[in-house]
């Protein structure tokens, strides 16, 4: 069967079409998200002529930064074939824990607290990863349980209403600017992006993609699958903690700080053309997905769509965007198309 199909496929793949397909492949499954982002940014420019003033644009990036960072972390887990539903709870727990810590030690240096939170986030990720890889609990359940545990623990600890005030020095990272111009959040966002791109080009990224695509094949090829998967969760946890620091600085202490962020992050990653189930998609596209989502929120605000209807529009756009991506050049349909010639070949022969 496989010997009969190859002669029939090359003619279809030559000529200008091949070049087009090649270009599309280089952009990967993320191609539609760049179009979406461009459309949304153009729409923003039309709606609000002042949008591209450096200050307001930087403010937009600053608002987007936590979601972009969360999306980068979530991407690592999703591309390795899992889910991380605990990131929203990690954000809430991080914000509340920071406030509680400052309640007891008002003079703690902000750098130490930030580093401590990042470490704690990484540890949560490590636990998620170990439960998923050693105990073989599906990551959906592991991180769902972790979400319940973290949220329960935070509220149990604070008696339901988090107290405490975050000092200016700590909040500076989320709301202030470096050198008076460039917000720290934008710098953090760029740093995370650079780190993520570097990681995905390094051996780690290749093994991560291989694991998500087919973990048995990866294991047989010598990838230490459990270790790679666990590392992905650790990165996601640390990214969530960093997002928590930014959000704490930006909007202060709230028990609702991270509510729903896990779904927003997953939506952003999927908008970026990353396949749930793993093995396909680029981290830059995932982060572009987060920017698109934030641009969409901003646009809906500017257009005066009433706050309540906002989520309806968001739902429709997400479904349509992912649907177009899936029926277009990417996603499961590509998998199907790759498989279908063999089944047709079988029926015709």
């Amino acid at each position, binding site marked *: 069967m496989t010997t009969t199909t190859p002669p029939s496929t090359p003619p279809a793949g030559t000529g200008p079409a091949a070049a087009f397909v090649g270009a599309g492949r280089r952009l990967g499954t993320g191609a539609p998200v760049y179009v979406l982002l461009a459309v949304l940014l153009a729409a923003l420019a039309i709606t609000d002529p002042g949008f591209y003033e450096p200050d307001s644009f930087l403010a937009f990036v600053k608002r987007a930064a936590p979601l972009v960072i969360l999306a980068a972390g979530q991407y690592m887990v999703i591309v390795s074939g899992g889910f991380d539903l605990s990131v929203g709870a990690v954000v809430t727990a991080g914000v509340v824990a920071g406030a509680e810590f400052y309640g007891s030690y008002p003079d703690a240096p902000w750098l130490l607290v930030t580093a401590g939170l990042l470490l704690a986030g990484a540890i949560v990720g490590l636990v998620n990863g170990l*439960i998923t890889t050693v*105990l*073989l*609990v*599906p990551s*959906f*359940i*592991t991180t*769902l*349980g*972790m*979400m*319940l*545990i973290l*949220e*329960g*623990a*935070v*509220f*149990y600890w604070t008696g*339901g209403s988090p107290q405490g005030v975050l000092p200016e020095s700590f909040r500076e990272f989320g709301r202030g600017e470096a050198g008076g111009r460039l917000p720290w959040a934008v710098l953090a966002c760029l740093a995370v992006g650079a780190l993520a791109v570097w990681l995905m080009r390094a051996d780690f990224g290749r093994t991560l993609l291989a694991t998500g695509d087919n973990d048995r094949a990866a294991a047989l090829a010598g990838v230490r699958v459990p270790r790679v998967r666990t590392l992905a969760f650790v990165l996601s946890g640390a990214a969530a903690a960093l997002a928590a620091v930014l959000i704490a600085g930006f909007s202060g202490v709230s028990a609702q700080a991270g509510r729903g962020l896990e*779904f927003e992050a*997953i*939506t952003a990653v*999927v908008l970026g053309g990353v*396949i*749930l*189930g793993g093995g396909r998609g680029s981290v830059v596209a995932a982060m572009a997905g987060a920017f698109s989502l934030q641009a969409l929120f901003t646009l809906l605000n500017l257009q005066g769509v*009433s*706050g*309540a*209807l*906002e*989520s*309806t*529009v*968001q*739902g*429709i756009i*997400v*479904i*349509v965007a*992912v*649907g177009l991506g*899936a*029926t277009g050049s990417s*996603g*499961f*349909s590509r998998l199907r198309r790759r*498989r279908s010639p063999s*089944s047709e070949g079988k029926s015709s022969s």
Partner: protein
Amino acid sequence: MTAVRTDAPAPPAGPRRRLPAAGRLKITDPVVGVWLAAAAVTLIGWIVVAADGGQFMTQANATGILQNSVALGLVAVGQSAVILTGSLDLSVAYLISLGTLVAAETMEGGSVVTAVLAVLALSAAVGLANGLIVTGLKVNAFIATLGMAFILRGYIEDNYTGPSGDVPASFQRLGYDRVGFVPVSVFLLIAVAVVLWLITKRTRLGHHMYATGGDEHAARLSGVRTRRTVIYAHVLCSLCVGAAALFLASRLGAGAPWAGTEARYDLDSIAAVVLGGTALAGGRGGVAGTLGGVLLLSVLDSIFNQLSVDPFFKNVVRGVVIIAAVALYARPFRRRAKARDEARAAEEAEKGALA
């Protein structure tokens, strides 16, 4: 409680129908296991509460446990159908909220029958939309139903700010009447569960659901109309959710925008389904186990209430129980995977020796 136990799990999963005999006995374990776990937790709860100076095995308490199982049970039974088919439904919570609102508002102005029909029609429409988006637009079920949840949420938040509508006393009897110590709503749950059990285990559609969930590609190549099957599963799930909405409306006496979201029926129902031994990837498990999972969760809740444990701490324990239970179910796989790896290593070593 005993009423449920004798009704639902009696035919546990019929191992006879599940092919490859080797190792299958272990897989039926979760269904039996979760009911044993529910029984064990009940026993432990009884002892602990008694040691604490309380009364656990009271009629009022048993009624409460059953009452609390109904809403989650209805949703989880529906959720089992979609998860079996390899899909997922995250829109259930907002559908419940909208369902209670539609039910209460229709009952205020019209008859109960119209309201029931309206809620079921709404549910079927939402389920159909979910199914069509998943199969037609090929959007991953996670995103498709999450998007549907956002759409419903926007509609609810745009139109309702608080409780609305009024449920007549005649319909509230569904929520409050009981036969002996068994609330009548439990019979609704049992009826729905039996119907779903029959559909999944005894009809062609059910077999197609298992086949589609097990391996969609293989099912399609074997002539199963997988798209249609997924759509039916989503409609079935949403109808169950509609039933839950009707029950909650009768309990609350009005429609409430937070009826479904406050109790987190979306994630809780998935947790109950997985606790009941249904594989999240689809193709394995069933309704009987799900009911066990629901009962386990509500017995735990009841114990914590009796011991007046901090409600937030309850969530912590809930998370631990869910992870631990699924880790236990994964054990046979772990052992088998290990055995397989060892066998392969031995084989390769042998080959190496030959070469």
